[in-house]
């Protein structure tokens, strides 16, 4: 069932175009990396702020800006990543680094949503203080996204 779906994706005309293009694939790749700079570059300072660094910076505008940037980065990374995946879907689906990376991205996204809709988040925006639970979630976020980045880079080396 899954291999059939992957084969259908492989046979898709757009996938064939990306596979053979001299410009589309490198540009997709560059955009994917660009979106990672937004994602990591946004989530890293947000997590560090929740962990107690940059206390001199007002929490609410800082966290709103950094998390918005990282959300845009995540959406763009998922979009470009999908097209990069279509080039060799069966290969990537069997690549352990890819599977670990996708799991980490799902975990990181779930963690970010839990943080975003928590009472501790609203309190942090209002008071600038993070509860121990929020700090733990921030530390988790930091570890997950950096691990996802490393696992993602590792796909090319297996």
């Amino acid at each position, binding site marked *: 069932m899954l291999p059939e779906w992957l084969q259908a994706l492989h046979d898709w005309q757009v996938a064939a175009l990306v*596979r*053979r293009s001299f410009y589309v694939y490198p540009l997709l790749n560059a955009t994917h990396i660009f979106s990672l700079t937004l994602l990591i570059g946004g989530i890293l300072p947000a997590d560090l702020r929740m962990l107690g660094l940059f*206390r001199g910076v007002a929490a609410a505008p800082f966290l709103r800006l950094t998390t918005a940037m990282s959300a845009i980065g995540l959406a763009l990374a998922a979009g470009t990543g999908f097209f990069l995946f279509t080039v060799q879907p069966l290969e990537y689906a069997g690549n352990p680094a890819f599977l670990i990376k996708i799991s980490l991205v799902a975990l990181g996204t779930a963690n970010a949503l839990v943080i975003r809709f928590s009472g501790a988040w609203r309190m942090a925006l209002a008071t600038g203080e993070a509860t121990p639970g929020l700090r733990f979630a921030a530390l988790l976020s930091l570890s997950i996204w950096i691990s996802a980045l490393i696992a993602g880079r*590792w796909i090319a080396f*297996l």
Partner: protein
Amino acid sequence: MRIRHLSRRTLIAGLAAGALAATTAAAHHGWAWTEDAPFTLTGIIEDIYIGNPHVTLKVRAEDGVWDVDLAPLSRTLRAGFDENAAKVGDEVTVLGFRSRDHAERHMKAARVIVNGNTYDVYPDHVPSI
């Protein structure tokens, strides 16, 4: 005090990131993962992938199926190796360099010889035999 404390943490984070980057760079791209001595593989083509990010072959030899990395798509096509060069079932000889890890049947090609034609995907790396 706070600034000094922060800069020390930043330094540690930077060093950790640098160490991770160095570890990653040591793996499979480029030529660092291959042996210095040339290697020749002869076998039957089981699979051909012509596309981004790079072209690959699966070649069945006496000791099993080998993964053969050619060059990136544009470079491989420039060398003349395209869909018409070979098909599954053709006998192929690949000159290049095998992985330092002999547990894996994985090599990087410099020259591919198939159907009487020679394709130098990495002319600068073709071993002189």
